């Protein structure tokens, strides 16, 4: 049946189906590798990555994100392409993928290709098809842009290696944060099957680094590193569990990025959370990304941000402010003396501004106006800083007091969180009334 459908299907319909099926994959970054064109083909890569467009959900479109096929022998409960779903199935041919990538790239629509796939027949068979497509793209079309490819769990080591030499970034989806969740929702996948290729890519990258030292022109294996993603909110894990998993992935598997994907209910299934009107848990996803940055750039540990007793993020405050409020004993910090690591922990100071402070204070004593010019967000930082022993304003070092003020200036929260879908215009000031309630709500 599928064969018949394929014969009649135009490339337009195929792209429609296979990009629609790929949209739940999160990663669309084109960063991590700098490569100049050698003058014989098309394309180059920039270390910082380039976004080319933004879709209606505000996510960037950097790569041509498609599935090779949406046929799948697996039956993962959360996935739109699971074998028990009745959806139109189709596959690209390697030629079609090459044409689309090259023609889109020429017109500066995209930065490269993101190729994922359902499992057609067997993991090895699928991986073989992906390899064929990438080989053609790299060697026949001479494409030198960015390629992000999924390693299929269960495919042979040798195949994963061969694909790795053609791609810039590889990723294996962790799917769900814990092994129990995986067993429940993706019965055909096992944790071991997922971690094996991840380890393989890590080892191969280490070997490759040494090869490159020896032979400058040795082929590069996954030069932009590997990443993974997991679904948030389909299983009952806490934020603490999720963040600990991410931390161990960064430490033990040297991942470049872990992506979090708010669960979108596309299937009805007794094992999945019931569909509600609230939509995907976007705020939770946002908090996890904020914490993820704290792990990677701010030298925080998962245990500092959350713990068994307090396993979920504060919905009202970002993780860094939340941490600072719970550790007021470290604050206020003296800008002119504190070391770089301490400065990094101050809410409102980022990596760049911390570095600028360390540099600039060699030339003279810093004042609050100088901090502002350096990019410090004073509306957050002022509760935690002193300049030459003085705070910016008279401030009480009390958790409640600071929290109230931070909430006043803080980020815009979704209406569902603040509980306010509209506000009556009033002669009376009802803002303070609400703020006074906040500590009560939080307990």
């Amino acid at each position, binding site marked *: 049946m599928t064969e018949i459908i394929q014969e009649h299907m135009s490339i337009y319909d195929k792209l429609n189906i296979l990009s629609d099926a790929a949209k739940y994959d999160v990663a669309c970054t084109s960063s991590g590798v700098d490569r100049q064109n050698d003058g014989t083909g098309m394309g180059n890569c920039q270390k910082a990555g380039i976004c080319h467009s933004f879709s*209606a959900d505000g996510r960037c479109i950097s790569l041509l994100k498609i599935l090779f096929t949406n046929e799948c022998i697996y039956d993962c409960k959360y996935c739109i392409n699971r074998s028990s779903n009745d959806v139109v199935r189709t596959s690209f041919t390697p030629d079609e993928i090459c044409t689309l990538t090259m023609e889109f790239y*020429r017109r500066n*629509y995209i930065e490269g290709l993101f190729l994922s796939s359902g499992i057609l027949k067997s993991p090895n068979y699928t991986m073989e098809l992906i390899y064929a497509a990438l080989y053609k793209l790299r060697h026949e079309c001479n494409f030198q842009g960015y390629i992000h490819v999924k390693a299929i769990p269960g495919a042979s080591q040798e195949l994963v290696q061969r694909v790795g030499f053609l791609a810039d970034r590889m990723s294996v989806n962790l799917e769900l944060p814990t092994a129990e969740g995986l067993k429940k929702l993706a019965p055909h996948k096992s944790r071991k099957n997922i971690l094996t290729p991840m380890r393989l890519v890590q080892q191969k990258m280490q070997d490759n680094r040494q090869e490159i030292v020896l032979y400058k022109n040795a082929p590069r294996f996954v030069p932009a590193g590997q990443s993974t993603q997991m679904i948030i909110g389909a299983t009952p894990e806490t934020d603490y569990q999720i963040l600990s998993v991410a931390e161990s992935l960064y430490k033990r598997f040297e991942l470049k990025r872990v992506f979090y994907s708010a669960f979108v209910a596309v299937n009805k299934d007794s094992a999945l959370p019931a569909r509600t009107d609230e939509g995907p848990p976007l705020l939770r996803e946002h908090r996890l990304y904020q914490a993820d940055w704290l792990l990677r750039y701010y030298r925080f540990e998962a245990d500092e941000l959350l713990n068994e007793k307090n396993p979920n993020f504060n919905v009202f405050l970002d993780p860094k402010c939340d941490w600072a409020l719970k550790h007021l004993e470290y604050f206020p910090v003296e800008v002119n003396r504190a070391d770089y690591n301490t400065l990094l922990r101050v809410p409102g100071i980022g990596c760049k501004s911390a570095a600028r402070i360390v540099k600039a204070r060699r030339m003279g004593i810093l004042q609050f106006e100088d901090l502002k010019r350096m990019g410090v967000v004073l509306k957050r930082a002022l509760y935690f800083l002193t300049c030459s022993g003085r705070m910016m304003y008279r401030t009480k070092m009390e958790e409640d007091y600071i929290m109230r003020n931070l909430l006043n200036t803080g980020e815009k929260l979704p209406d569902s969180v603040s509980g306010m879908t509209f506000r009556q215009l009033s002669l009376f000031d009802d803002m303070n009334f609400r703020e006074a309630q906040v500590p009560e709500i939080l307990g």
Partner: protein
Amino acid sequence: MKQVYICQDTIIGVFSAIHDAWMENRDDDSGIALRGQMMPKMFCEYTEVEENEQKSIAVERLIKKNLGYNAYWDIYHALLSDDCEKADAVYHTMLDARQIKDSKRIMEHLSNPHVARVFELSRKVGNEAHIFTEFIRFRELENGVLFSEIAPKSQVLTCIADHFTNRFPLENWIVYDQTHEIFLAHQARRKWVLVQGEALNTEAAGKISEKEGKFENLWKMFCRSISIDERGNPNLQRGHLPICYRKNMTEFN
């Protein structure tokens, strides 16, 4: 009396004006204004500058030698912006660089208003140029040439030329700057060139190749299908991709 030198809004023009002002009046009260973008003031003497490439090259060499390459980079980018006082800011930055001990560190003196202005303009142009490496869309014409139109505020063409030359070395492509009516043209395996003073042949630019419509439709459909409806957030989209850039983008037409 303050001497004001008037020049065209081009790199050669401004550099020629700096050359004359520097030679004749660097120790007195002097300034530079752009033709057509200035308000005549009292107690000023205006001089038209004779522009030529020798003067421009001499000033370029002067800046690179005394202020260093990084400062030249900032000055060059600042002069591409659409600000009407950019030439004066650059000239005074150069004058002020003579007052400090190490002229090569002039761009670190951000408390100096002229330096701050040059720095700000340079960043503005650099950012806009980066935006166009992202949002430029080419269309294939009948003769196989890739053609793109943009409407930037600053003259970004020279900033993006190397990027696209490296990216598409085997293609013939043209980028047309509608605001300043300049073409950036690249012939396969050659270096890029800037073409000024030519009018756009709208008829030729409208003749797209046979395949072009098909790929435009594929791309438009892709942009729709890749978005997750449940996460819809047009404000976020507008923040990343402001409406003003969408005019020349395939997926928004």
